């Protein structure tokens, strides 16, 4: 053997002897933690994956690069191509931006550390993807909606997801209504927690109200909609004015209607006003009759006067009232002026004098007549 060869072999052995411990040191680098923000992704979400490695050995390890590979959850950020040395006992953090492109489930993107001298470290990082949205429901609403009547609507938002949702707010969307507040903020909802928001909604027409729940999963904004149809109907509790005990009287060219009005509903009728409707023409002294507030089961008498043509057999008596919110309602009762249908007319009752006062003018006329007659008689006998 030539001396040159012997020298080459010797150098190789020396190098081999020096580098041998380095391969053993790379085995001491381990992944000590991996965290994902948010903890659970939804499809399409972008998250931040943080991986911490530590050199648990007694020698420095030289790391060439750190990369993340994966399907379903794909890295968006660039790999770490020049990591450098990691001293004994030291740790290092790698952060990757990932996006959930696949479906639901748990994905395992590979974290790969390439060591400068030899080998690499592969570590599958578990990433959970779940598409379950926040749940939203109406927990309180009126039995029926009425035009221009304010209704309290309470919306509850629940979080069935395994991680918290932040910035949760509810926004009513649509036209044909006014609402207070214009949006409700709940904030962060922990897993399996819920929050409620109450809206005062005043519809002006029948329509659909969309309660849109806006929330964030990490930096990703999501929405969940709840559509509430607003259809006008009869409120089971609303005031229900009923006209009874009606008497219709004719007074030389006009009619006088006397009756009772009672509230058969469960809520108060406020500012109750009673007036005759067309074809009747209201006349003095009772063009309208103001009852005021009529509480449930209350009863009040009323009186209206009006003129109507001879051929009119029925006239409507219009009751106008308001609810506690000031919304106006009307109800109409047809009153028969004769043999027509409707509320029964009065049986014959003694006619009434409208004034009931002593007729002073009549008395004066009588006195003047008496004086005149007495004077005429006296004069006639004097001239006889």
């Amino acid at each position: 053997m030539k001396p040159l060869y012997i020298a080459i072999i010797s150098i190789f052995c020396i190098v081999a002897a020096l580098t041998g411990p380095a391969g053993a040191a790379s085995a001491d680098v381990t992944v000590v933690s991996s965290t994902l923000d948010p903890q659970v992704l939804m499809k399409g979400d972008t998250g931040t994956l943080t991986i911490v490695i530590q050199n648990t050995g007694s020698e420095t390890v030289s790391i060439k690069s750190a990369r993340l590979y994966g399907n379903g959850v794909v890295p968006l950020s660039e790999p770490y191509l020049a990591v450098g040395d990691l001293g004994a006992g030291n740790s290092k953090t790698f952060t990757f931006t990932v996006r959930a492109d696949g479906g639901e489930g748990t994905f395992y993107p590979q974290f790969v550390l390439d060591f400068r001298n030899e080998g690499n470290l592969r570590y599958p990082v578990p990433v959970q993807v779940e598409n379950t949205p926040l749940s939203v429901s109406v927990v309180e609403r009126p039995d029926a909606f009425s035009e221009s009547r304010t209704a309290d609507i309470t919306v509850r938002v629940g979080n069935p997801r395994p991680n918290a949702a932040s910035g949760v707010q509810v926004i009513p969307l649509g036209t044909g209504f006014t609402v207070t507040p214009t949006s409700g903020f709940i904030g962060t909802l922990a897993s399996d927690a819920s929050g409620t928001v109450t809206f005062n909604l005043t519809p002006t027409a029948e329509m659909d109200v969309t309660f849109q729940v806006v929330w964030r999963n990490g930096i990703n904004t999501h929405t969940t909609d709840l559509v509430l149809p607003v259809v006008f109907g009869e409120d089971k509790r609303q005031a229900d004015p009923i006209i009874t005990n009606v008497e219709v009287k004719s007074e030389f060219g006009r009619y006088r209607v006397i009756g009772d009005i009672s509230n058969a509903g469960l809520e108060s009728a406020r500012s109750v006003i009673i007036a005759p409707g067309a074809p009747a023409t209201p006349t003095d002294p009772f063009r309208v009759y103001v009852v005021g507030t009529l509480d449930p089961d209350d009863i009040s008498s009323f009186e209206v006067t009006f003129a109507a043509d001879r051929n009119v057999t029925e006239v409507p008596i219009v009751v106008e009232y308001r609810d506690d919110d000031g919304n106006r309602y009307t109800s109409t009762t047809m009153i028969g002026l004769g043999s027509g249908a409707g509320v029964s007319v009065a049986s014959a009752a003694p006619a009434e004098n409208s004034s009931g006062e002593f007729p002073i003018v009549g008395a004066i006329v009588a006195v003047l007549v008496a004086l005149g007659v007495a004077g005429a008689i006296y004069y006639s006998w004097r001239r006889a």
Partner: protein
Amino acid sequence: MDSGFLRVLLEPGRFFQERMRGEPGLKIPALIALVIGIIGAVSAAISANALTEGLPPDMQVFGLAGGAFAVASGIIGGLITWVAFGIVFYIISMVFMGDGDFKRTLEFTGYGLIPQVFGGIIGAIFSYQIVSNLSVPIISRPEDIAVLVESVTTGMLSDPLTPISGIVGILFLIWSANIWIFGMKYARNLSTRNAVLTVGIPVGLYILVNLVTLIG
């Protein structure tokens, strides 16, 4: 005081004394009775209208028929009243040996009705006022008409203007009686005392009945 009607009212003695010189005539007395009847018909029409107000449209034909009957009764009633008083005066004056034909009695009785024209006009105005104040219940069945009539009658009688109207009517009747006294004195050739009795008895009874009705 040359005007005829004014003389009847203020100087009936002299008026009838002068009328005795001529032949008895019934045209003017009949005209006076007819005017009184027409005025009475107006009052009757006002009251009938109040009744009609209480009838439903399909029954108002009954009200109109009743009104027409009331108007006719009013017109005829003026003439009947005239003749009736004349007959009564003639018969009573027979008790006092009255002398004079019936036609003259009827003529002077008719002149004595002139105050009733004014009384009728004032009475019609009062009737209108009373009916205006009336509340008439509306009926739906034909069998309730009698109740309606009773109701309207009760209402009219309960009006404080009704007794005043009755008193005014009595005052004008007293005025007529005063004229009739002079009329019977000349028509039946009675003494003043007998003429007063001839007229005073029936008129007094008539007034008494009216007062009893008014007092109730």
